[in-house]
């Protein structure tokens, strides 16, 4: 894509209305070393115009209790980078343990005492992962990296339970510090699911509920670097074939 071609699409790109292939081409173009002919600035300007469109709506004050709900949750979000690293290191141990123990629980008959020991003290997502491992019908699908250094990931899913857990490791740093899950069905644009935090160590995990299975299991599950507002995966890292 040339700068001229990009500038033709820059407004649509900023508005988030491009189809997946076009959007990916724009991302690749912006990622190319310069010189550009004002491409990044064109996106910035168009994004500002897009954001101003919300100004056509009458302001709508949220109910008073909403701020209290937000304030109550602020403590859940680590602020101190040092503390954050420590938490991630601790969780990293559980991540590895979960993968190993999860596989073990999946492949051999359960011993109640061993399972209790494995679950003790683990974070909720790991508990969920290990719990899923013991459910009939649970599948484990390994993601395929789209490029070198894209990391690795596994999804543990159970369609009957309509639950899944995605575990990532060695993911590359993402600009927004988060990854995003997408579902894809043949012939249709990907649909964004939730984003989830990425540690400085490249670890991430997500618990996925019914959204993944509605209306039915998708053909593929994608993981990209999170790019809020992007209608399609702008930096696709991993793909899991679910069918």
């Amino acid at each position: 894509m040339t700068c001229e071609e990009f500038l033709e699409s820059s407004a649509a790109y900023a508005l988030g209305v491009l189809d997946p292939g076009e959007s990916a081409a724009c991302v690749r173009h912006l990622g190319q070393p310069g010189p550009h002919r004002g491409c990044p600035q064109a996106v910035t300007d168009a994004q500002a115009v897009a954001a101003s469109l919300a100004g056509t709506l009458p302001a709508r004050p949220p109910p008073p209790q909403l701020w209290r709900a937000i304030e109550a949750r602020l403590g859940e979000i680590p602020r101190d980078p040092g503390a954050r690293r420590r938490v991630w290191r601790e969780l990293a141990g559980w991540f590895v343990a979960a993968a190993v123990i999860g596989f073990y629980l999946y492949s051999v008959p359960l011993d109640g005492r061993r399972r209790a020991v494995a679950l003790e003290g683990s974070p909720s997502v790991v508990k969920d992962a290990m719990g899923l491992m013991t459910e009939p019908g649970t599948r484990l699908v390994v993601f395929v990296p789209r490029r070198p250094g894209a990391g690795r990931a596994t999804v543990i899913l159970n369609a009957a339970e309509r639950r899944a857990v995605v575990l990532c490791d060695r993911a590359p740093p993402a600009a927004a510090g988060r990854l995003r899950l997408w579902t894809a069905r043949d012939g249709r644009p990907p649909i964004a699911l939730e984003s989830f935090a990425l540690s400085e160590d490249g670890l991430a995990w997500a618990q996925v509920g019914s959204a993944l299975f509605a209306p039915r299991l998708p053909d593929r599950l994608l993981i990209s670097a999170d790019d809020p507002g992007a209608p399609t995966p702008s930096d696709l890292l991993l793909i899991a074939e679910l069918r």
Partner: protein
Amino acid sequence: LVGPADRDRDRALLGRVARGDVRALRTLYQEHAPRAMAIAVRVLRDPQEAEDIVQETFLELWRRAGQYDGARGGAVGWIVTIARSRAIDRLRSAGAAGRALEGASETHVPLTLPSPSDCLEQRRDQARVADAMAMLPAEQRQTIELAYFEGLSQSEIAARTGNPLGTVKMRVKLAMGKLAAFLRPEDAN
């Protein structure tokens, strides 16, 4: 609609948020949550789900305040962009995309005049953007509304309106260009 003074103030507030200042976050919330709520309600058409989106938006702001780039616009633009993005994500992930795709024409919300309860500055901005939208030819305005408020892609807009994809692309480009020219700060003209 965001001047250099506003950006400086936003940068200072978000800098404080990045250092963990809850009062600064509350200031941003008080000023911009009504805009986030408005766009979330508009996209989702469900006030309760919209409240969840506003909550997610400000928690994300709390987490990512250190990444704010003042050169890319004011905080309100950033907040609105996050809220819209999250709302569209939810619309699609909840399987409600079909509802939006099929039902938007029945629930289409036209441009509104400013509310008397809004502050003067907000009303001025609101009227200015509404004026800019009103100046667009009807088909360009509809295209932008379907894109921005319904979260439809150009292909989906083409399918919805029965217009060729190339026509939709041209309308998006022309409309965004006109809006940019109209909304450019006076001192830039």
